């Protein structure tokens, strides 16, 4: 178990380092640089060159990379050229916003998607199944920003159930939650659609298995068969993709944040890319990648606990 965990940790670090490295070089491969961006269109070539030298951007890329790694190892991810703040602090500030949105989105998605998928499978071929699967199709095929805009129009402007803005400067907990609800529902809907479809097909497959027939032949009540004996099997593939949907929901969160004008890691990285704020992008990607890898690793461990055939050795 100890060796297993150690190996997982090593694997995790390699993944994160790989991600950050790729982003480091990609950033420098795209045209434009922070110096030109900061000084604007009318800057002279000399002033740009001077600023580049000051920022260390005139040196070869591999040398910049070595410097970055050396500093990163001491916990220094550089300074945002736009705000002058340590990049890592900037990222830390946006984490609670993103975490609140992604986590509540996933929780809504699982709480809605799994029961709906099970219901759909148990009643497959009926009107209820058709209805749920139609809803899921909508959730999957309509882009999340479109769903977001429609929701704002209907639920914020027409019915005024929720505020149109996805964030508030108020520190009141309930106000914050009220602002979070609509973005979380929109994000949750698209993920729920995916989870519902997956749960349905997994459940249908399990319900056709021999051991379900055996349980029926032994008189185990249908309720126990579906919600205990079959569900645990059906949840294995669902669990396996929740990690993937988490990464995916972080991606969708960028769009949701944009539609609802909500701060967060996604919109921060997006802005930083436009500003060629290398340090901020790198710090953001580092945190994002760590989060995704961490969630996936913990899910793997839960997975091994649900499915006894996955041995930890």
């Amino acid at each position, binding site marked *: 178990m100890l060796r297993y965990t150690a190996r997982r940790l090593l694997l995790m670090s390699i993944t994160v380092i790989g991600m950050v490295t790729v982003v480091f070089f990609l950033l420098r491969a795209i045209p434009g640089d922070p110096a030109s961006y900061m000084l604007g269109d009318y800057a002279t070539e000399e002033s740009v060159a001077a600023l580049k030298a000051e920022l260390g951007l005139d040196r070869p890329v591999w040398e910049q990379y070595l410097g970055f790694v050396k500093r990163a190892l001491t916990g220094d991810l550089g300074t945002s050229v736009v705000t002058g703040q340590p990049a890592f602090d900037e990222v830390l500030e946006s984490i609670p916003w993103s975490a609140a949105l992604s986590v509540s989105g996933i929780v809504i998605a699982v709480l809605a998607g799994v029961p709906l998928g099970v219901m759909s499978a148990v009643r497959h071929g009926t009107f209820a199944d058709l209805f749920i699967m139609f809803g899921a199709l909508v959730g999957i095929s309509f882009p999340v920003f479109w769903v977001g805009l429609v929701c704002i129009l209907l639920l914020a402007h027409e019915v005024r159930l929720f505020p149109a803005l996805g964030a508030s400067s108020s520190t009141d907990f309930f106000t914050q939650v009220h602002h979070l609800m609509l973005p979380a529902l929109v994000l949750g809907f698209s993920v729920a659609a995916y989870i519902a479809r997956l749960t349905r097909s997994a459940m249908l497959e399990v319900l056709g298995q*021999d*051991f379900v027939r*055996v349980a029926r032949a032994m008189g185990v009540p249908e309720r126990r068969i579906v919600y205990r004996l079959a569900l645990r*099997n059906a949840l294995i593939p669902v669990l396996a993709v929740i990690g993937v949907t988490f990464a995916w929901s972080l991606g969708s969160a960028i769009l949701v944040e944009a539609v609802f004008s909500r701060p967060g890691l996604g919109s921060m990285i997006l802005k930083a890319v436009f500003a060629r704020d290398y340090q901020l992008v790198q710090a953001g990607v580092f945190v994002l990648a760590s989060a995704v890898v961490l969630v996936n690793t913990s899910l793997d461990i839960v997975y091994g606990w649900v*499915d*006894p055939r996955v041995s930890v050795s």
Partner: protein
Amino acid sequence: MSDGAVLAVRDLSTVFPSEAGPVTTVDGVSFSLGAGETLAVVGESGSGKTMTFLSVLRLVPPPGRVTGGEVLLEGADIAALPASEMRWIRGAGIAMVFQDPLTALNPVFTIGDQMLEVIRAHTAMSPRQARALALEVLERVHIPAPAKRIDDYPHQLSGGMRQRVLIAMAIALRPKVLIADEPTTALDVTVQAQILELLAELRSELGMGMVLITHDLGLVARYADRVAVMYAGRVVETSPIAQGFGRSRHPYTRSLFRSIPRLDLPADQPLTVIAGQPPDLARLPAGCAFEPRCFLGNGREDCRSERPALLPTTSDRHLSACPHWRALIDAEAGA
């Protein structure tokens, strides 16, 4: 004959709708089974052996439907029970063991957990009492060190052990009837005999009626008291084993046994050596379903036009669905 029978089935039919029209996979099946008796059910693949007993338990997979018939368990017609009460019969009145022990157990629950699920579905036992009962039946099916095994997951057990667990599950509630559907087909030859011995032992200890569905005709003579032969969803012959297989009074049964090289050898051969194709249930001939393959029927007009009923021959213990059965005996006498 159904007096004293623990299970008597009359005119049981099951139909599957299909594009080519309704397909009758179980077609007016009747048989009876006494307490402590073993009835072997044989027939080619697809002849409706499994479907017959799924119909008895009313577990026919949709869109299939039991369309008629009586199923008397100790005299009470369970085919007339509402669906909600049927589950009390399954497992406690009639239990079934299936062919493949590798897929018959739920991979993500321990065997103890699965046994408890069955026991507690039928009794008001506390978890602790149920576990004690589970240990007791595991012991009974000769699982070594059951206290250690009960918390194992299925993948930690061999195929033979898993079949023992399934048998333990099936007998835990002391059913009146145990249906074993090809219980050894998926197992090693050496393990097969052990499982069959175990079933025979349990049958006499617990006084259950037992149905042994099998492809292996060698087993029939050794373990069964009577045999029912199925063809195209119907029972075409039933007879006591003591009457001797060679004395069969149906051409299909004769062909089946001729397809084995030697009766005194354990035969594992699939029963596909009979000339011609197994029938297409959606397109059965108007007369006898076996007619296209029958060595006796060819040319006879009534074989093509009339569907023969299962009727007594010389004794009412030996039934045949071939009106020309006497010709088989005459041929023997002549030879």
